[in-house]
């Protein structure tokens, strides 16, 4: 995949722990619907580092989700630049963007977004199938991932047969399938009870401790304690960005 990709800019020639995995540089995003223009981001500059467990908080319509979509190469900025592991998202072609989503980032959504016609294990295998991982290997890894999120016994169930918490854990396992360095979560605990939310947060904390960069959007201020960095966004602008030291 690297060969096919146009490497327009690499932030640093060698990516060390200190180089940001995601970098937003004065990013503006405007949605046009007919003659109506909606400004979602008004100039966001933000660097997300490998060890970050970044919690993004803000009211509805503040631009949180838009920012997450840009961080996950689902969308391109209207102005400014977005870099994901050094790749300039704005200058990439559709296929290259798809490759970034396939290998560099993992998405988890509020409404789980599992494929309803696939079983838990098939859902986890899906990103690996997209990445042409051989069948045997992906089945093995899917079982490992489901075990890791505590669902080793529910592998052949359809999403409709799983509880909200279980579905979300399948979604996390799926996001990790191709071993991405970045995990992007859009209110992952928004549709589960507080106990399940706590267990999900524990899984995420462990993943972050293992070196995965996590960016998570939430409305729930109680969850802030799990993060090591909190950014507040309002009207498309980051109004605060605090790093907490040595949170256990």
């Amino acid at each position: 995949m690297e060969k096919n990709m146009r490497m327009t800019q690499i932030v640093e020639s060698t990516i060390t722990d200190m180089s940001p995995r995601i970098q937003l540089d004065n990013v503006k995003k405007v949605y046009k619907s007919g003659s109506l223009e909606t400004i979602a981001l008004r100039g966001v500059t933000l660097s997300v580092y490998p060890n970050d467990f970044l919690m993004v908080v803000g009211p509805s319509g503040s631009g949180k989700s838009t920012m997450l979509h840009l961080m996950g190469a689902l969308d391109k900025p209207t102005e400014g630049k977005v870099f994901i592991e050094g790749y300039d998202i704005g200058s990439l072609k559709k296929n290259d963007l798809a490759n970034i989503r396939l290998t560099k980032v993992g998405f988890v959504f509020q409404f789980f977004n599992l494929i309803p016609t696939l079983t838990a294990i098939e859902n986890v295998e899906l990103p690996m199938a997209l990445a042409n991982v051989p069948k045997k290997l992906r089945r093995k890894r899917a079982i490992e991932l489901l075990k890791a999120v505590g669902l080793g016994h529910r592998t052949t169930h359809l999403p409709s047969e799983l509880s909200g918490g279980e579905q979300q854990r399948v979604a996390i396992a799926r996001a990790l399938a191709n071993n991405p360095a970045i995990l992007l979560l859009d209110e992952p605990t928004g549709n589960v009870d507080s106990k399940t939310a706590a267990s999900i947060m524990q899984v995420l904390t462990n993943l972050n401790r293992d070196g995965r960069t996590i960016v998570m959007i939430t409305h729930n201020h109680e969850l802030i304690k799990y993060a090591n960095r909190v950014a507040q966004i309002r009207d498309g602008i980051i109004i605060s960005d605090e790093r907490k030291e040595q949170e256990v």
Partner: protein
Amino acid sequence: MRIRDVLWYALSHMKKKKKRSFLTMLGVLIGITAIVSITSLGNGFQVTFTGELENSLGVNTLTVTTTSFGGPSGSRQTYDTILYAEDADYIRNIDGVKAATAVKSVTGDVHIDNISYTLTIQGVNISEYAKIYESTFKTYSGSFEKLENDSVVVGYNVAFPYGNETQAIHDEDNLTVTLTYRSGVRFITRNFTFTVVAILQQAGGFSQQDTALFVPLETVLDIYNTTEVSYIVVSVESSDKIDSVKEKIKEYYHDEIAVNSSEALLSTMESMFSIMVLFVSAIAAVALIVAGVGIMNIMTVSVTERTREIGILKSLGAKDRTILGIFLAEAAVIGFLGGIAGIIFGLITANILGSQLFAMFSSGFSSSGGTRTLTANTSLVITPIFDPLTGVMSLLLAVGLSIIFALQPAYNASKKDPVQALLYF
């Protein structure tokens, strides 16, 4: 994504949406069933029909008559020439002619077990006639050897009029035939008694002999006090001599005659059948196009319904061509399964139709006056002929059409914006 995985994904969706997939498939199934059953039945019909025609017309036979066989495109032509019984003697001596007989065909009533039947009575030179139709004009019992003026050869269904083993007429029976003829301006109805010398084997198919009586030509000519005949049938030694014999006969009649060959009739029949098969295939093709539109319709609905799923797939890193592939694979699978099922159902339909529907082609003759109908129990069974190439072609057609009609909705699916698609509810 590998093709195998694309298929896996498409199939997993279809499995969960069995009813919808089946209904979509149904259109293809019906179209292919129509094509396969019609073509295999058409082929079988053609083979059976030509076989039966050859049987009843004889091989390398010519019919000298005053009315030309027009065929589907040509027009019939009628000549004023009168055919005489002696003409057959001339024709018999033409080089290349194996046998020839004049035929005087009349209608008479026959009483069998106190039931009156109206039958065709053919005045022919029986030994010559047997040479011309050597494959069908064979004795079931008796022989053609000791022929007298009052001899009669009886068709199988006349001897067995009940359609079972019960034989109503036996050799050496006396058979009373009521004939009506004109003497001057008067109509005279008289009974004539004939002696049965032979009963014919069942010819079946289109042959008229099963429900006819054959008597010596001279006898019929005497009764009707004429030397005019209905037509002359000629058997030619080999097919390459047909044209020369035809020419010589035409010369004899100064070109004022029609010489119809069984081959010409057969080839006309064959071309008519191929036109029929082509025509009905065109209707089946329309059915398939309708099925294609059905696929397009379902796919369009499906793409809209699955907008969110498309968004999820894109967020997971699926490329546009993968999405395109998934929807096309679904269409291809629908086309393939519909095609396979259509071929199977087509063959079943063809076999049922072949054995049941075409029973109506059974030969027989209708009642007239108060007389009873004598129906031949020989129904024509069409054995469908399935050409494997037709199978392969219809399968390709089913898959190809399904893919073509799914192209537009699948393309739309692949081009959906991932963010918009994810927000779709």
